[in-house]
């Protein structure tokens, strides 16, 4: 199936419910999404999303792209009041201007899980889903305030993996704790393990993750409107196989590495902290995260090296100028298809992702086996306008400015700053 056709179908599907607003209780129901309702707690719904964007780059990089950033189709449903499930898969991602054939191109599986939810204090989820680390990484693409997640959310936060997780609410606090097969899609090893004759492959994984969130400020006096803020901390622990398998620093568009992988062996730990506050039509989000990777026996002389460290943080603020409340599902007071302007939101985010070694003794090198690694970082500011035209569609305009610490390690060596931008159409149901 041609990619533009996929987009057209998804647009049509998203447009229909706005006109139909079918509210049937049994059989075929089309409200947020096409759903077959078999009973009170038994149903199957079709989910889909298409992200179409036109990117323009700094002239130094010299690339423009009109692309289907993501297209996914899925099913989700309830089996009983105790169980729900979801499956979702990528389809037809690529350059919309490329010649393609008529086959449907399936990409990777996204969420594939079943959840037991009898008790609020302890829900159990099994399958493939996101590891509980990172506020933004665990926010669905349709709820993001910017077209792309912050660099740290894409790099340090692990993303999806296969595993089992228990989660729940205990008073003002929520928790998630899981064990996973590997260490997430964002940390996938780049290098096939090199083994000599007679050697066995090293066992990789499992990884462990835990996150605790809560309305901490409610317990404190004199916090006023800040009482609604949610804060959290997270931690992961996994093993990394020997090789060029560390995390790496990709530029905002992923065209170049501003920090290439280094040799690692041992334990990878992540630490995270998050802040989420949405008073009225505004929001303020912030995250800090750090990964530390061991480099046992990785020096030029097979000795241990100091830890490899990645640090990231961001602060993001939004304001719905049309006055809607900022929550997870912003509904325009006057949707476009009902003759209104939709909801309009202004957004700004400042972020940084940097890499370094724990050791700072002597002369720094870019050598992936150096004890003192020459640091580099990418600081990015993103200005955005979000036009939320309906419950299912939104247009995102982002202007992005990147500034690299080391001008020799950028998409265009010798130039440390770049402007770029995009216009994105999100269709999600």
């Amino acid at each position, binding site marked *: 199936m041609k990619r533009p056709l996929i987009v057209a179908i998804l647009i049509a599907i998203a447009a229909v419910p706005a006109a139909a607003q079918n509210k049937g209780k049994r059989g075929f129901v089309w409200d947020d999404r096409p759903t077959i309702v078999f009973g009170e707690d038994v149903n199957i719904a079709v989910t889909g999303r298409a992200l179409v964007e036109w990117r323009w780059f700094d002239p130094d990089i010299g690339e423009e792209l009109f692309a289907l950033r993501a297209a996914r189709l899925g099913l989700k449903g309830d089996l009983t009041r105790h169980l729900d499930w979801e499956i979702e898969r990528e389809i037809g991602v690529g350059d919309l201007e490329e010649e393609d054939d008529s086959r449907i191109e399936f990409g990777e599986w996204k969420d594939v899980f079943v959840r037991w939810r009898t008790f609020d204090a302890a829900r159990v989820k099994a399958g493939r889903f996101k590891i509980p680390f990172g506020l933004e990484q665990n926010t669905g693409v349709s709820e993001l305030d910017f077209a792309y997640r912050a660099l740290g959310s894409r790099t340090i936060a692990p993303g999806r993996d296969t595993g089992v997780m228990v989660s729940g609410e205990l008073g003002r606090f929520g928790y998630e704790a899981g064990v996973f097969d590997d260490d997430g899609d964002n940390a996938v090893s780049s290098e096939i393990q090199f083994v000599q004759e007679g050697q066995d492959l090293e066992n990789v994984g499992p990884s462990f993750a835990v996150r605790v969130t809560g309305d901490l400020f409610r317990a404190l006096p004199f916090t006023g409107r800040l009482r609604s803020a949610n804060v959290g901390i997270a931690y992961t622990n996994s093993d990394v196989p020997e090789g060029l398998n560390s995390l790496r620093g990709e530029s905002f568009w992923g065209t170049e590495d501003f920090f290439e992988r280094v040799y690692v062996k041992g334990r990878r730990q992540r630490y995270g902290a998050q802040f989420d506050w949405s008073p009225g039509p505004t929001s303020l989000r912030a995250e800090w995260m750090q990964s530390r990777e061991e480099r046992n026996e*990785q020096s*030029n*002389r097979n000795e241990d090296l100091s830890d490899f460290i990645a640090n990231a943080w961001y602060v993001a603020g939004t304001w719905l100028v049309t006055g809607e409340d900022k929550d997870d599902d912003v509904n325009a007071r006057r949707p476009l298809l009902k003759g209104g302007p939709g909801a309009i939101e202004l957004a700004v985010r400042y972020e940084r992702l940097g890499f370094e070694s724990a050791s700072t003794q002597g*002369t*720094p*090198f870019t050598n992936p086996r*150096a004890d003192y690694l020459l640091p580099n970082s990418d600081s990015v500011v993103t200005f955005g306008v979000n036009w939320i035209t309906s419950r299912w569609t939104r247009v995102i305009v982002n202007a992005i400015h990147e500034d690299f610490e080391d001008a*020799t390690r950028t998409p265009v060596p010798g130039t440390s700053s770049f402007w770029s931008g995009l216009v994105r159409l999100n269709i999600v149901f």
Partner: protein
Amino acid sequence: MRHLIRGGVLLVLFALGLSSPIFAQTSDDFFNPEVLQRVDIWLNETDWSKLKAAFQENTYYPADVTWNGTTVYNVGIRSRGLGSRSSTKPGLRVDFDRYNSGQQFLGLKSFVLDNLTQDKTGIKETATMRFYTRLGIPAPRETHTRLYINGRYSGLYGLVESVDKTMMGRVFGSIGDDVQNDGYLFEYNYVLGSPWRFTYEGSALPPYKARFDIKTNESHAESTIWGPIEELVRRVNETSSGGIEQAIADRLDLPAFVRYISAQNFVADFDGFTGYDGMNNFYMYRKEESSQHVLIAWDEDNAFLQADYPILMRIDENVLTNKLLSLGSYRTQYFNVMLESADSATGWLRQEMQRQFDMINAAMLEDTVKPYTNAEYAADRETLLAFPEARITYVRCEVAKQTGATRPSGCQ
């Protein structure tokens, strides 16, 4: 007491003044052809295994290098070579500035470890480069070294100066305070299955880009880098022999070029500018603020093929050499350089070969990773030692035959 202090101070000053020039090491010491060096490379055992397993790739691995008590940390090494690549005895390139652009050692940014796998004598390259230097032909400094990897003896290697900006500065010197090394340096790239003998390949630059790898000023416009080469080749091909000097003298240092090809023929290298499969094994340098190119010698493992190697071997197959040597003045220069080479080699070349053999002999015999036996080494050594005398006689006789001069005694 005051006398004692004064005396002590003077003694210290004298010692400092004396010791500095004695113990300061230079790149000349590193490439000292009179010394069999010892170079230690320290790298992660996994990387050494990977490098040998993927010896056809140019992947860099980090390492430390020790020479003469000094260690340079965090250098980059990779497998190198064309036909000489080996999984058991890899040829290596060592870049001091791979992971820190400012790092140098003895003023060098890099050097090459020639694995000597294509030369059973182990000295053809080093003897030829010393001979070229005697003749004033730009050539890298070279000697031999025992190479130790992580403390283990890993074979006898040639220690070769990289042809780079540093070497260009050494060879072409300075004009005032400006070191003459900001020109355009190219390594000739032998394209497998596409032998080239200076025929015109059209006005588009890609064919020239494929054959001439740019090593300096890489970010400049393609027309600036390869345009002058296309122009040189076009002029050579479009101009008749009679007008060739006028057409290309501003693009190629013709006397230096003739000197180079003549000397290369004298040493009977069959894989050089007029090689058996087209041009091969040289660098070309367009001097700073100049349009004129000069050739730099490189890779002479295939020298000393046979004493009766014809003195005009494949000259007529190459458009440039054919047209140029059809001119009387350059043909005369070509033969004169041959005779000069014969004179220079007389009494020196065999002695130099013998000296080098004496220097490397133990290291060669202990080298268990070389792809030939000690008996083969011994046999080729004797053959090579017989080359100079026979070649000198042959060249003098053949030049006399070509020029109509009186043939010296001993000619057949």
